[in-house]
């Protein structure tokens, strides 16, 4: 971790919950981005975490915007900065609801138009800021306040939607692997044009696990293959970090699911279904890495 700068762009006393991984990943994102950056934040946990006016815990400009609008605001901001010759990084930092649900139209438009920006979705798999309602990114079987018996639909495959826009760089990351994330942010920001990073960000109160288990939960997601770390440079897929091992020999998904209160009472058939989905997904990725498809 020696290469990670000591400068902090998130100051002390945020309003984050104990064990919040989304504020942890933001710390590393901003270290990678540096001070000449603007964060565009739609409604999400980060709207609250940054602090309450007249205070802010953020040491870079943060532009808070309406829920559906982050990628479009970034389009205008990036165009304006480039017009006047500024290289300022424009980074959207949005939750899963603001990305896969209400914000997906603006995101799609900004990607299609070749906007020079980095869009980061930190995915805690629900509308956590409003108290854990189901989002399109909530996984099958997870209990939320609007899916009290467990979600009956699968998690929306955001990455394949984004991939269809043929952007120069996209990646996944997980809060449990900050160095992997740090490198990906640096790589994304070095590329001109639209770039995208999707980060799995475990949420203790939402996923119902002890706050000290946040890092472990992220590692289990990766080791079971529920979440795969990869990057896609100009279309070419590479699996990164801990996912290389998981691809060859994943842990059973039960080891991840049964550690979280949100999956309490999940039946064996659903676990089998999830296991098979993970197997299929890992096989698809392995085939692509090997150049079979």
């Amino acid at each position, binding site marked *: 971790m020696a290469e990670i700068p000591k400068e902090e762009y998130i100051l002390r006393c945020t309003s984050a919950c104990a064990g919040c991984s989304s504020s942890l990943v933001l710390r590393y994102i901003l270290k990678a981005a540096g*001070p000449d*950056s603007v964060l565009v934040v739609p409604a999400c946990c980060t709207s609250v975490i*940054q602090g309450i006016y007249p205070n802010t815990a953020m040491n870079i400009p943060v532009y808070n915007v309406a829920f559906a609008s982050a990628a*479009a605001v970034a*389009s*205008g*901001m990036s*165009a304006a900065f480039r*017009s006047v010759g500024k290289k300022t990084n424009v980074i959207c930092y949005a939750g899963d609801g603001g990305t896969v649900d209400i914000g997906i139209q603006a995101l799609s438009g900004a990607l299609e138009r070749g906007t020079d920006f980095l869009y980061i979705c930190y995915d805690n798999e629900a509308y956590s800021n409003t108290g854990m309602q189901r989002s399109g990114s909530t996984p099958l079987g997870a209990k939320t306040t609007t899916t009290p018996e467990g979600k009956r639909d699968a998690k929306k495959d955001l990455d394949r939607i984004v991939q269809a826009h043929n952007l120069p760089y996209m990646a996944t990351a997980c809060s449990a692997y900050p160095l992997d994330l740090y490198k990906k942010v640096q790589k994304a920001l070095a590329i001109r044009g639209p770039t995208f990073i999707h980060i799995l960000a475990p949420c203790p109160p939402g996923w119902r696990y002890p706050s000290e288990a946040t890092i472990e939960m992220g590692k289990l997601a990766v080791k079971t293959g529920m979440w795969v770390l990869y990057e896609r440079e100009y279309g070419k897929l590479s699996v990164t970090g801990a996912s290389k091992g998981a691809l060859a020999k994943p842990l059973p998904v039960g080891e991840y699911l049964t550690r979280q209160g949100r999956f309490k009472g999940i039946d064996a058939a659903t676990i089998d279904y999830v296991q098979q989905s993970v197997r299929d997904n890992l096989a698809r990725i392995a085939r692509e890495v090997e150049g079979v498809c």
Partner: protein
Amino acid sequence: MLMVATGNKAVATAVKDARPVVVAAYPITPQTEIVEQIANFVESGEMEARYIPVESEHSSMAACIGAAATGVRAFTATSSHGLVYMCEMLHWAAGARLPIVMANANRALGPGWNIWAEHSDSLSMRDTGWLQVYVGSVQEAYDATLMAFRIAEHDDVLLPVMVNLDGFTLTHIMQQMETVELGDFLPPCTVPHAIDTANPGGYGTLTPPTEHFKFRWDIERAMRDSVGVIRETEAEFARRFGRQYAPVEEYRCEDADVVIVAMGTLGKEAEVAADVLRNEGIRAGSARIRWFRPFPAIDFGDADVVVIDRDYSFGSGGILAHELKAAGMAPYSVIAGIGGQEVTYDDIAGFVRNRIPGGEYWFGVSD
């Protein structure tokens, strides 16, 4: 330069002359010609702006917000459904104190689909914190758009301005107009709270009940201050370019026994109606409301007032009529021109002849 242009072309030409850095827009009838024309100006090199062809009106206003937040001049145009679709971002633009200028081609809202003139679209955005001006001719569309940038960007205002022109009856009709040599009438855009990475801060941060009202009061104070800025800008425009405007364009009102109040092209039609009525011996005048927000101070003395609303607040009444009632008047409220309904100066003269002070009349329905 003298030219013949449509209302849409006049707006696009004014925008070219104002040299915005970012234009973000989405097509919608009857505004489309504005953004087509701007896209052509940019493509041909006549304009240096970045043209962002967004995927929706919500995003066009969002992109203007992102651009203006960095301190540059930004413009968009829309109409009807596009305007109400971006409603959330209209509040955001005003709340963020960004001097964005937008042209709105006034058009009815569906269902059923109707592409013709009505003021319900912009008047339903009345309380968003935007200044609103309604124009009555092609020349005025050009002039008002130029002035809108100067007013919006004034340090005492820093609020967005909506320039409204009637769909088809102004966007698509051709009249002679004259462009101006702008000189320093429009100084470079400066936004004092523009994003500065060397001086980081939070924008639109969570604001508690102990603070939020202060920002809203600041908007109201700026809206009140804009009255003087509008007057000063219109006077300066007249001094430089010879065309004088006022928040209310009064026509033959000095000795009038009855004053017709309207906005947009119906306000121009009312001037002809006043002439017709005077030929009959009825001392009529016309007062065309140009600035709806901030709403101008008006006083017609003892004259009767006939107000024409090309809009309606269901369950309450004509929206312009309400403004006059709030000013202490008891107008005869006429609802006319809804969804492009044809209204001639003869019709307007008829409204005046048959007026019942304090009454309401839906043209074509109440007969």
